[in-house]
C-alpha cells in the first residue's frame, strides 16, 4: 500500500518530464504492496479452515469481516469510528496548530528559542501517557482530556521538525530576503515557512501517527464509544473477532489518513529537487 502511494504520487512530483513513463509502473507497483497482506490473509484463512489454529482466539479474516459487518448493520460501528475520528482530528489539529506557531517563533527568533526551547524539550521528556492522571483531574473523563492528550502527542514531532527546519533554512536565501527589506513576518511567511515546509510535513506525518497512537491511550482510559472502547469491549466479552476487527480498522484508518495527508500535500513540495528513492 505504501509503495502504491509512492508511485501514485511520483508523476505529480516529476512535473513535465517523462509522464507516460512514470505512469506505466503504477498498477504493478500498487499490486506489489498488496501481495503481503493478501497472501497472509489467505494463509490465515486456510489455517483456520484446517483447524491448525484455535478459532476462538484467532478467528479467520472472514469471521472478522462478518463481525464488523454485523456491527456496521446496527450502526454501532459507525458511531465508534466517528467518535475516534473526531478525537483524532480535533487533537491533531490542535497539536499541529500549537506546534506550528511555537516552532515558527523559536525557530525564527534565537532569543525565544533560548527562552522556550529548554522547557519544551523537558516537557517532551515526559512520556505523554503520564499526563493522563493530571488531565483527568483537571478536565474530567469526557472529551477534553482525550483531545488534549492526542494534541500533546501530535505536538512534539511537528514542533521539533519545524524548529529544526527553520534553523536549517539556507542562509543565502534569508539574505535575499534581507536585501529586499522583508520584515520579520514577511521573512517567516515568504521565506522561512515555505523553505521549512518539507521538514514541517515530515513532522506533521509523524504527529498524525502519534495522534492515532494516543487516541487508543485516551480511549482505553475510559470511554463509552470509539475504537478503543471496542477493544476493551472485545476483551471483556471474550470476543477476539471484535478486537481484531478494531485493530484492522486502526490499520486501515491510520494508513488512509496518512495517505490522504501525503496526497493532499504532495503539490506543496513538488518544487523539491530530490532523489525520491531509486531502483
Amino acid at each position, binding site marked *: 500500500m505504501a509503495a502504491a502511494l509512492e508511485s501514485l504520487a511520483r508523476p505529480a512530483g516529476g*512535473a*513535465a518530464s517523462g509522464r507516460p513513463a512514470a505512469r506505466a509502473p503504477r498498477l504493478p507497483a500498487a499490486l506489489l504492496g498488496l501481495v503481503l497482506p493478501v497472501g497472509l490473509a489467505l494463509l490465515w484463512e486456510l489455517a483456520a479452515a484446517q483447524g491448525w489454529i484455535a478459532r476462538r482466539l484467532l478467528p479467520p479474516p472472514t469471521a472478522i469481516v462478518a463481525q464488523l459487518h454485523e456491527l456496521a448493520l446496527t450502526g454501532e460501528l459507525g458511531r465508534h469510528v466517528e467518535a475516534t475520528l473526531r478525537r483524532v482530528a480535533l487533537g491533531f489539529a490542535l497539536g499541529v496548530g500549537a506546534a506550528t506557531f511555537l516552532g515558527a517563533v523559536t525557530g525564527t527568533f534565537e532569543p525565544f528559542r533560548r527562552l522556550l526551547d529548554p522547557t519544551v524539550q523537558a516537557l517532551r521528556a515526559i512520556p505523554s501517557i503520564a499526563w493522563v492522571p493530571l488531565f483527568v483531574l483537571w478536565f474530567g473523563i469526557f472529551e477534553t482530556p482525550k483531545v488534549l492528550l492526542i494534541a500533546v502527542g501530535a505536538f512534539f514531532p511537528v514542533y521539533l521538525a519545524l524548529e529544526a527546519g527553520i534553523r536549517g533554512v539556507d542562509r*543565502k*536565501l534569508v*539574505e*535575499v530576503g*534581507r*536585501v*529586499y*527589506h522583508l520584515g520579520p513576518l*514577511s521573512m517567516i511567511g*515568504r*521565506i522561512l515557512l*515555505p*523553505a521549512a*515546509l518539507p521538514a514541517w510535513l515530515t513532522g506533521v506525518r509523524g504527529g498524525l501517527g502519534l495522534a492515532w497512537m494516543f487516541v487508543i491511550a485516551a480511549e482505553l482510559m475510559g470511554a463509552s464509544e470509539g475504537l478503543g472502547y471496542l477493544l476493551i469491549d472485545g476483551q471483556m466479552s471474550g470476543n477476539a473477532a471484535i478486537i481484531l476487527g478494531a485493530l484492522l480498522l486502526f490499520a486501515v484508518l491510520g494508513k488512509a489518513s496518512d495517505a490522504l495527508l501525503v496526497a493532499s500535500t504532495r503539490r506543496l513540495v*513538488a*518544487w*523539491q*529537487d530530490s532523489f525520491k528513492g531509486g531502483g
Partner: protein
Amino acid sequence: MLELQGVAKRYPNGHLALDSLDLALPAGRITVVIGPSGCGKSTLLRLLVGLEAPTAGRILLDGEALHGPSPAIGVVFQEPRLFPWLDVLHNVAFGLSRRLPWRERRELALRACARVGLAAAVEALPKQLSGGMAQRAALARALVARPPVLLLDEPFSALDAVLRAQLQAELLRLWGEDRPTLLLVTHDLDEAVLLADEVVVLGGRPGRIVSRLEIALPRPREPHRPAFQMLRARLLSALPSYNLQAA
C-alpha cells in the same frame, strides 16, 4: 554616486577584512573590483548591499548615509539564490515591492524576464533551469525594479566560457538601456577589461586598494585586439600575488 569613506570591516573573530577604504563609484559607470581570493572583495560587496555594517567609515548613496539594504540597490550573487518553491515569474517579481498590485508586478516581472531572454520559461521552477537560465532569472530579479545601482558578485564565475561570454554581452546590453551605476566583483581579468570603465584592484590582508586602471576602450570590446591585450597585461602586473594564485 555610491561612495565609501574610510570604510573598514573587522569581523567579530578579529579578522580585519577591509581597512579604511575610500572609493567612489561614479553614476552610470561600470566599476569592476578585482583581486585575489581573500582580499575582501566579497566583504566590500556585502557592505554595499547592506548585509554587513562597516566597523568604521560611512557608505553614502547620492550623499545619504546607507544603513542596511536599500531599494535603490539591486544585487546578483555568485549563485542564483532563487526560491526553489517559486516559478521564475514569482522569483523575479520578488524583486518588487508588495505595495504594487500583483497585476502590475506581474507585468513588470514578465517584461524583466523578456529582457534577459527568459520569456518562455516564466512558469518553470528553479530545478528545471540550467545554470545559465537560473543566473538570468537572478539578473531579472535584480533588474526588475530598475534600481539606479546594480551590484554583482562574481555573477558568471560558475558558468562555462561560452555562456559566460554570452551573459557578459547581455549584461552590457542591459546596462546600456538604463545606465545604472554598476559594480561587478570578479577574479577574471578578461571579464574586468571587457566590462569596466574603471578597474579597482584590491590587495589582501587587510583589503585595500592597490591600484586603479581606467579602461577607455570603446564598446563592444574585442579581446583579441592588441589594445585589449595590453590593458589585460597591465592589469595582470598590478596583481602580483595573483600570478602565484593563477599558476
